[in-house]
């Protein structure tokens, strides 16, 4: 590719697929991904390979007992308002994160934090409840985008960051404009302005890039992306995909039966699911880790490859009657075409081993409600943060070890809770850590309440030929600062 | 005589398209001269309207026209569109039947009246308004300056028709065709309109073709008459000749079947059968199946007679013209035999029906909330009695509340006030169930025979329906009873299984009567039972009703607007005006010595089918129209139109009281026979 020097500025037009209506960087959901890295700076960043590098924090020192981290902030950095980014701001940000009302997606991650102490204008120390592995600490620092204290209460509607772009005009439901922050502490953005235009569907966005109305599509689906790639557009996959997981409510119906659940390890036609649902963009996986994750173990893919016979054998072992086998429904997301397709594939597959089940199609709030409260037998759902510290998957509802909304209290699989615990408490690097991971993987397939099928990309980027300098951000967020035109 | 304005020769009009061709007009010849009124009479479907439309070239495209029509030097049958258009409005003007629909509701009267002249470039558009005012003034519309910018809905029926006359006459055409111009109007309004038409004709010297089925109107205004039957002119001649010495059996039949207001004939002589259906005309003389002379004659059955001159200017299309005079003489005597002498109800006996101060007010609702904003006083204090076996006629102009009275008596409409006693029982206070039972003794015959029979039931079932409803079908004799009823009304039992649509209007009315009789009622309320029928059929039904009364001892409340019919059939007559009875008396007294000014004007306005009476009768033309029943005038409701109105009438409502010396009750402060000063 071209080096940054060759890139020209201008106005970058990005197609996005959902309206943005929240400027809180802690509201860390797909819809905000185009904004967070542009309006805010985090304490540290990861390289695409997962190596932490400084950002607002020029330095961070983990205490030898792994029970605290001392952060030194970069000096001379200001928020857009002109106020300095200092330790007070970080403290305010941490306070927000620890508040269940305001902490949003960061809140669960804060469970390891005991408190924090401010040391001078640029120093702050975060104390943990227990010794914490390094990965978990850097994950937290990477997750914390610093918000200007005075803006914390209004951050949902008014951005309050220090990032390379300043929020410009927002037309409800149509577009959001960000203009370059000329006083940015790093090299200022190449483009002078980013216009995020809301498209309500993939084809619309594809048509727009094809007609030259936009330069980039951010967050489109794999099928459209592949079509565009075949038409000569650039397709950029980030290092932070999700894993699609067949989530099982092990407290209901036949799913209470271990063997029955385990059969599903073999009932996932992962190749077909990846091909049909995601146009082959991604990788099949039997474990909930991204390729970059230290817990990744590819051997599971072959060991638990699609096999009706093995499944059949397990089903027989389960001792369930034919009627019991079919006594469940597969909840499917009616708003997601790919999800519908893969759910139908599973429905069709399980029919081959004698399970005649119905799809329970839900959408929107009703669906989230069901997922949040475990009102389902089985459902597909993407799992995030798989590229980070392995136990971060524990922030996803089905994998939660305490207060699991689906599996309930106490957790029905103590082995799983213990395995997670072990990963969390095995500090350092080396063999013990690896063994902890291996143990976790083994427990995962045995408890079988979540059956991963494949990775898939959110934040897939399709760019026109003349666009260069696209950063592969660890969370697949849009980084506008480095992009320019050839 | 001068040149004819219009000369029609051998006109034939056939409608094609949609099944078999319909020969609506089959060889018609006539001329119309300036300053002359040619009356065309004939029963419904005889081709009157089609002839007039042919003259103006306004027939639809499905009509094939043959023959010649020469109007003001234009040969209409071959002229191109533009010539015809130029002709219309300039050479010929038309007046149609229904003034409520002939005017465009969304344009002002003034615009519509002058539009033709503007289109023909006779007046510049800028002068239209002035011309409009002038035209309205010519047809006696009060306040023409204010009226010219009004819309049709702001005009009453009579005014609208006068506006139409103004419109037709605007371009001073040489020929006016008036197709039933007064049929939709009340007699008093008809009188106004006819006099305006006559006046305008005199002013312009135009020729007029007046199409009507009312022989009275013809006698009143026509100079010459053409009688149409089955698409042909069967007789034509000067008006006096036609009425005095008719030369065609059909004309004779028409005259004899007509009840007359000026004489108390005993019994009508109807023409047998039905008018022909133009799609299936009889062979030979079209009239032969109904003709007392030619019915069985070979020649009449096979050969269509030509229109021949019988006397100078008087032509007839009959093979047996010579015998027609005899027909007139001998059928007159025996048939006009003593009529049903109504069984003189013993006055002492309590009346069968006694209506006292009956009131029916309908709420007027308006706005989105449908709030009541006023009342229509449809019936506003009606008192009358009907004795057993007696016929009481109830007459009045349109909208005066006759139908409402009849229906309220039946309990079909809830009375607002007053009492209705039937056979000693107060009907207005009955529960719905009791009312249904009471109705067995009291039945109603509807005006429109076409809509009074359930179209999806056989006529046999229709007549049996009341018996089934009351659960007395078997008790009353079942199918046998139904067949008897059919015979009673003069229909063969073979038609029992047919549907109403297979019957003509007269037959339907017979079925309606049979149904009403099924329950053996004692009182029939007949709401205009013959108004929708042609005269010849009307006579059949009237005779039937009279026979039934004699046979079954029925009492009739006979509602009608036709004063002649009422006179013919009734024993006593009550006259209604704006929801009230204003005069009631024994028939002869009422017709010969009316004491209420309204009755007097009404009677004088009725055209008499006698051209000689034209000059001798004194006519009272009432000004204005019937007021709106929701806003009746104060005092005597009639005072704004009354020629005797005094200050008292304007404030004090007259009571309905007996008039001294006559068997009459009336509601007038200045009651008294005509001529007697008040």
């Amino acid at each position, binding site marked *: 590719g071209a080096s940054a020097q060759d890139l020209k500025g201008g106005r970058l037009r990005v197609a996005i697929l959902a309206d943005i209506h929240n400027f809180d960087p802690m509201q860390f959901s797909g819809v905000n991904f185009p904004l967070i890295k542009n309006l805010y700076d985090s304490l540290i960043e990861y390289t695409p390979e997962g190596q932490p590098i400084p950002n607002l924090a020029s330095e961070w020192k983990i205490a030898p007992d792994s029970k605290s981290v001392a952060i030194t902030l970069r000096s001379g950095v200001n928020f857009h308002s002109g106020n300095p980014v200092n330790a007070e701001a970080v403290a305010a940000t941490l306070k927000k994160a620890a508040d269940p009302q305001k902490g949003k997606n960061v809140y*669960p991650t804060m469970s390891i934090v005991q408190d924090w102490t401010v040391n001078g204008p640029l120093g702050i120390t975060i104390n943990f409840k227990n010794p914490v592995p390094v990965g978990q600490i850097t994950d937290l620092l990477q997750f914390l985008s610093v918000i200007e204290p005075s803006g914390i209460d209004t951050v949902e*509607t008014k951005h309050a960051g220090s990032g390379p772009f300043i929020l410009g005009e927002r037309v409800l439901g149509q577009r959001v404009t960000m203009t370059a922050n000329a006083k940015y502490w790093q090299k200022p953005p190449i483009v002078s302005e980013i216009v995020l235009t809301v498209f309500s569907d993939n084809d*619309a966005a594809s048509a727009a890039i094809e007609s030259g109305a936009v330069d980039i599509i951010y967050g489109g689906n794999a099928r459209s992306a592949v079509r565009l790639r075949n038409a000569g557009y650039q397709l950029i996959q980030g290092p932070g995909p999700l894993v699609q997981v067949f989530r099982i409510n092990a407290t209901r119906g036949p799913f209470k039966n271990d063997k029955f659940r385990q059969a599903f390890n073999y009932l996932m036609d992962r190749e077909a699911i990846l091909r049909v649902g995601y146009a082959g963009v991604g990788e099949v996986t039997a474990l909930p880790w991204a390729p970059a994750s230290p817990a990744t173990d590819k051997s599971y893919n072959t060991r638990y490859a699609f096999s009706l016979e093995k499944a059949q054998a397990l089903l027989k072992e389960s001792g369930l009657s034919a009627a019991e086998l079919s006594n469940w429904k597969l909840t499917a997301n009616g708003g997601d075409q790919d999800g519908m397709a893969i759910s139908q594939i599973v429905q069709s597959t399980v029919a081959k081993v004698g399970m005649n089940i119905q799809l329970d199609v839900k959408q*929107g709030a009703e669906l989230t409600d069901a997922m949040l409260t475990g009102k389902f037998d089985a459902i597909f759902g993407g799992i995030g943060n798989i590229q980070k510290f392995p136990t971060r998957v524990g922030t996803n*509802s089905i994998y939660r070890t305490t207060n699991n*909304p689906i599996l309930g209290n106490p957790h029905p699989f103590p082995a799983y809770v213990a395995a997670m615990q072990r990963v969390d408490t095995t500090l350092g690097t080396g063999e013990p850590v690896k063994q902890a991971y291996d143990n976790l993987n083994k427990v995962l397939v045995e408890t079988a309440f979540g059956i991963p099928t494949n990775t898939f990309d959110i934040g897939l980027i399709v760019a026109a030929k003349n666009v260069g300098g696209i950063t592969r951000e660890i969370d697949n967020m849009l980084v506008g600062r480095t992009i320019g035109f050839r | 005589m001068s040149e004819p304005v219009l000369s029609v020769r051998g006109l034939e009009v056939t409608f094609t398209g949609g099944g078999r061709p319909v020969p609506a007009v089959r060889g018609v010849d006539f001329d119309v001269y300036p300053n002359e009124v040619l009356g065309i009479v004939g029963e419904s479907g005889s081709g009157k309207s089609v002839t007039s439309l042919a003259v103006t070239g306004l027939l639809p495209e499905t009509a094939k026209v043959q023959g010649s029509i020469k109007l003001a030097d234009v040969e209409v049958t071959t002229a191109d569109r533009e010539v015809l258009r130029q002709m219309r409005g300039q050479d010929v003007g038309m007046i149609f039947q229904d003034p409520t*629909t002939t005017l465009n509701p969304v344009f002002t009267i003034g615009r519509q009246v002058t539009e033709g002249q503007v*289109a023909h470039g006779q007046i510049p558009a800028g002068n239209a308004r002035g011309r409009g005012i002038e035209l309205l003034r010519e047809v006696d519309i009060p306040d023409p300056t204010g009226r010219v910018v009004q819309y049709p809905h702001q005009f009453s029926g009579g005014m609208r028709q006068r506006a139409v006359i103004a419109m037709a006459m605007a371009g001073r055409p040489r020929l006016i065709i008036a197709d039933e111009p007064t049929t939709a109007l009340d007699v008093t309004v008809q009188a106004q309109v006819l006099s305006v038409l006559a006046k305008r004709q005199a002013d312009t010297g135009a020729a007029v073709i007046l199409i009507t089925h009312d022989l009275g109107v013809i006698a009143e205004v026509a100079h010459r008459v053409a009688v149409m039957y089955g698409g042909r002119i069967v007789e034509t001649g000067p008006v006096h000749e036609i009425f005095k010495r008719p030369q065609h059996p059909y004309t004779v039949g028409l005259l004899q079947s007509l009840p007359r207001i000026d004489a108390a004939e005993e019994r009508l002589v109807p023409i047998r059968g039905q008018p022909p259906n133009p799609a299936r005309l009889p062979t030979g003389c079209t009239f032969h199946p109904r003709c007392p002379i030619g019915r069985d004659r070979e020649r009449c059955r096979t050969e269509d007679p030509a229109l021949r001159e019988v006397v100078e200017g008087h032509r007839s299309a009959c093979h047996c013209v010579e015998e027609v005079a005899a027909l007139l003489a001998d059928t007159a005597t025996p048939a006009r035999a003593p009529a049903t002498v109504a069984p003189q109800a013993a006055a002492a006996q309590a009346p069968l029906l006694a209506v006292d101060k009956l009131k029916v007010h309908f709420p007027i609702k308006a706005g989105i909330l449908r709030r009541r904003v006023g009342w229509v006083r449809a019936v506003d204090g009606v008192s009358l009695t009907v004795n057993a076996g007696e016929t009481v006629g109830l007459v009045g102009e349109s909208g005066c509340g006759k139908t409402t009275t009849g229906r309220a008596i039946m309990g079909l409409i809830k009375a607002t006030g007053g009492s209705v006693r039937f056979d000693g029982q107060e009907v207005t206070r009955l529960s719905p169930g009791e009312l249904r039972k009471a109705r067995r003794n009291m039945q109603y015959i509807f005006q429109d025979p076409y809509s009074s029979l359930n179209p999806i039931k056989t006529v046999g079932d229709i007549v049996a329906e009341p018996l089934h409803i009351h659960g007395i079908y078997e008790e009353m004799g079942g199918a046998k009873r139904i067949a008897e009823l059919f015979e009673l009304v003069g229909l063969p039992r073979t038609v029992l299984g047919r549907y109403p649509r297979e019957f003509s209007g007269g037959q339907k009315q017979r079925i309606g009567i049979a149904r009403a009789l099924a329950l053996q009622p004692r009182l029939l309320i007949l709401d205009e039972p013959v108004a929708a029928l042609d005269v010849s059929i009307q006579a059949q039904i009237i005779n039937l009703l009279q026979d039934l009364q004699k046979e079954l001892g029925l009492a009739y409340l006979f509602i009608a607007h036709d004063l002649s019919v009422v006179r013919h059939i009734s024993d006593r007559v009550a006259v209604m005006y704006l929801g009230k009875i204003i005069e009631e008396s024994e028939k002869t007294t009422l017709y010969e010595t009316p004491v209420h000014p309204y009755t007097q004007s009404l009677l004088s306005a009725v055209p008499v089918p006698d051209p000689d009476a034209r000059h001798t009768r004194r006519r009272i033309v009432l000004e204005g129209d019937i007021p709106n029943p929701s806003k009746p005038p104060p005092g005597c409701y009639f005072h704004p139109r009354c020629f005797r109105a005094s200050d008292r009438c304007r404030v004090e409502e007259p009571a309905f009281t007996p008039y001294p010396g006559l068997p009459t009750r009336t509601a007038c402060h200045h009651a008294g026979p005509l001529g007697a000063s008040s």
Partner: protein
Amino acid sequence: MTGYIIRRILQLLPVLLISSAGIWAMIYAVPGTPIGALVGENATPEQVQAAIQRVGLDQPMLVQFWAWLKSALVGDLGRSIFSRDPVFDLIMGRAPATLQLGLGATLVGLILGIPVAVLSALYPNSWLDRSLSGWSALALGVPTFWLGILLILLFSVELRWLPSASTYVSIFESPWGAIRNTFLPALTLGVYVSGIFARFLRASLLSEMKADYVRTARSKGLKERDVVGRHVFRNALLPFVTVVGLMMAAFIGGTVVTEAVFTYPGIGRLLIQAITQRDYPLIQGVILFILVVHVVINLMVDVLYAYIDPRIEYS
């Protein structure tokens, strides 16, 4: 007239009040709450509880309704639970798009429909009439969503002339952009209504042609052009205005399906989205907006009626 209009608008209030109570009740009948969509599937119980409190769903239903009503009465329709934007702004953000599409569609409908109707009525039962009637049947019979797909296939996939999905571009800002984006959905809807317009107008023209006043007008010697163009058309226009008004009201209330086909950012999609997310205040607001639009357009039609039909007087 002014009094009449004011009265009609005042009568709208109870309607809105009853409707909003009805909608509120309906909302509660529908399973699912906005909380899930608000906090996300991975929220912790504390977060869920916090969100329930923040939105006020822990309050009894009547209390919630009363709170909403109180602020609604002073013109504040509340904020969207999901996006936190004022409901009024969200609606007004979409209203111009819907208005533009609705007017465009009506315009297309009239342009296509009126000539069809007039030609059909001038030559009833001719081959021309039959083929034009066939056209209107087709216009009505083709489901709009399928027609939309076909148009996209032709103009976007094949010819690549127009975008397959539309964004809202104001006609005042960029006429060309507006046309590019509005054309296909407007055409889709327009074809459909043109069928309704053509059928309706043809029928009323034909029935007016039979009216007696037409014969009267001819008997005066008016040119056929004037007979049809002035007398007949003016009368046929009366019921037609009502139909046009009805359709316009329907369009401006949002055309859910067409907006979905073209992903057009109109009121219909806003409502669907609000319903999917169970965004109560937004659902409430959008439905009330639709009701108001209906009533206002009906009122406009009635007022227009009074101008073209002299028989109607409002007092």
